[in-house]
């Protein structure tokens, strides 16, 4: 009943034509592009990978086997764990967290500097310089790092020239290139939310604290960081989700023996053509990253509404 009231008010405010147009567009987006696709993927992940002839037949029942594959592997006795895939999963999550923390520390000083020095031409120029790499294709950015980190890449040549190392270091096989690339790919998504919040901080607060004799560290801990918390949370959430779900950087910069969890999903889909298995892995990735983000947000007392500001 109440819903009806809301709808009638909505149509009264917008007119029938505009109201239904707006409702139609939003409804199409939410239902057909977000909710139903996710649900159908969830449904898919509980099914067997059957040839088309048997689909809808008696064998087409729900199963947990796709999830068991992740935990136990193809072992039907369930004695041993699927250590390969589980290790990839754990590594993905931990590395994504590490990349996020690294980005927070790298971006905070710059965000503070940009946010507090208001409107000079130099700062504008810095912001423009910062935006440029963001417009370059993700693949090309990964490619640029590959040129630098390659066996005969610039970094190895420089290190050997300085006699810091005699043999070229294999940055790619040791995953250094991968972590650098992940940090590089999404660093601006950390910087700009932080910059936006710090910019809105009243300078007088900092000056007042300084006049009262607060130390430099204390000013940041008690004034700047609490104020910037929504921005930091928003940036951290985006960087974590995007690095955990990154595909381009691991494919280009990852070593041949180490995989990222999204690469497993990709393999199930495109190499093994087992969509059901791939969907199950994707669901695990989605659910675990969301749980982690919500837990961290709860621990730091941040609301969902702060994201994207």
């Amino acid at each position: 009943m109440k819903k009806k009231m809301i709808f009638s008010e909505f149509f009264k405010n917008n007119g029938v034509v505009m109201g239904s147009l707006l409702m139609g567009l939003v409804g199409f987006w939410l239902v057909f592009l977000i909710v139903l696709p996710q649900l159908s993927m969830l449904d898919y992940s509980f099914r067997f990978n059957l040839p088309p002839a048997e689909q809808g037949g008696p064998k087409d029942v729900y199963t947990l086997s796709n999830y068991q594959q992740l935990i136990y592997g193809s072992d039907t006795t369930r004695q041993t764990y699927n250590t390969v895939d589980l290790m990839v999963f754990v590594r993905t999550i931990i590395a994504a967290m590490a990349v996020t923390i690294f980005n927070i520390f790298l971006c905070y000083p710059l965000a503070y500097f940009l946010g507090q020095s208001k409107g000079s031409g130099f700062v504008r120029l810095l912001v423009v310089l910062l935006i440029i790499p963001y417009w370059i294709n993700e693949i090309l950015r990964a490619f640029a790092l590959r040129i630098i980190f390659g066996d005969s890449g610039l970094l190895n040549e420089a290190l050997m020239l300085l006699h810091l190392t005699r043999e070229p270091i294999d940055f790619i096989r040791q995953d250094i290139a991968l972590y650098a690339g992940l940090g590089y790919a999404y660093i601006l998504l950390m910087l700009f939310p932080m910059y936006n919040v710090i910019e809105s901080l009243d300078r007088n607060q900092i000056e007042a604290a300084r006049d009262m004799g607060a130390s430099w560290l204390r000013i940041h801990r008690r004034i700047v960081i609490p104020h910037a918390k929504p921005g930091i949370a928003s940036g951290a959430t985006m960087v974590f989700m995007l690095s955990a779900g990154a595909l381009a950087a691991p494919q280009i910069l990852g070593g041949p023996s180490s995989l990222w969890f999204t690469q497993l999903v990709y393999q199930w889909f495109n190499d093994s053509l087992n969509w059901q298995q791939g969907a199950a892995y994707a669901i695990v990735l989605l659910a675990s990253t969301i749980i982690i983000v919500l837990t961290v947000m709860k621990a730091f007392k941040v609301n969902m509404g702060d994201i994207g500001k």
Partner: protein
Amino acid sequence: MSSTALIRIALGAYFVIFFSYLLGPLVVMSLTAFNSSAFPSVSPWACFTYEWFEVLFNDKSIRQGIYYSVIIGLGTVVLSVSMGLAASIVLTQIWPRLRSTYYTMIIAPILIPGVVLGISTLVFWDRVGDFLGVSEGSLLDLLFHNGIFLTILGQSSFIASYAMLVFVARLQRFDPGLTEAALDLGATHTQAFRKIMLPFMRPAIASAAVLAFLASFENYNTTTFTIVDYKTLTTVLAQKVRLGINPSISSLAFIIIALTIFVALAFEANRRNQARKNAVKEGKASTPKKGFLPPFLRGNPAAIVFVALAFVAIGMVGTAQQYSPESCKIQYQEAKQIEIQRRIQELQQKRKIRDQSGARNGPDIFVTPPPKKVQPEGGSGAFGNVFDPGNLNSDKNN
């Protein structure tokens, strides 16, 4: 006093590190586009060349990729901008208690990994086809398995959220009284929307469209699943980079970087001009400052970009005709040959020396670690060198 100086130095060092991390890779990549070496690198600089641009322009798959990327980009712009606009308008009117749930729902696609969005789109439309019972090869079946259709939907599902954020920021400054006034004066709702809301939102629509197009153009994670048997520029590039890299990709990157810098500077110039005009209007600044540009270029960033691009193009074509890298390449090849010869000789020399010492040490099976110094006297080690590999032979020789 010294502590502030220290902080300044630390801050400067940090800036240098940050910006070289951010921009350094792009600079290096741009440089590799002009090196004739077949593997993209700068440090053994071979010859300055434009040949990789030629390779790039003759690459059919890249041209094809750009074509499909533009089509998909335009489709995504239309769909995501209209959905984002509708969602932001609904957000301003929604029942307050539903508001935060609704906001979470429309912001969520930004946070869902692109891989998941791609997979779910692919699976869902396959299911819709099954559900509607469309027969194999019918029009709808082709549509639901068409890479362009699926990619536009998959990308729009999260790009609409970006567009929505742009619109929400603008809508906060909208005065609903304007629409009410129009309605009171007898306009229909559609008219009020077209004559009041749309003109007000136009700058936001423009920036959302640019943002959506760029996001669509560079998207990889979602596209790689939904594109099926087509190829966009990004998937072509990804395939090339994974299969084996060559500097023609760097030359593409150079073109994109150059365009980006021009566009960014044009935007910046435009913004400054606008700010100055506003200041003049308010009487705060009296005369426009003298710029370094002639007056017909001032305030027209597009012209600046055009002139700069024309200069670059003329310069490149001119030098390309004047300068041919062939002679340099031959020289470089010769130098390389000489270098290789020298190395071979060095190696031969080394082998000779080793063979000589090996003749005394017996068969050369202990290549690594390098042959130890032969101690013909023996007895200087704790066990009189009984474990020395050359010991048996040297005993015999002695």
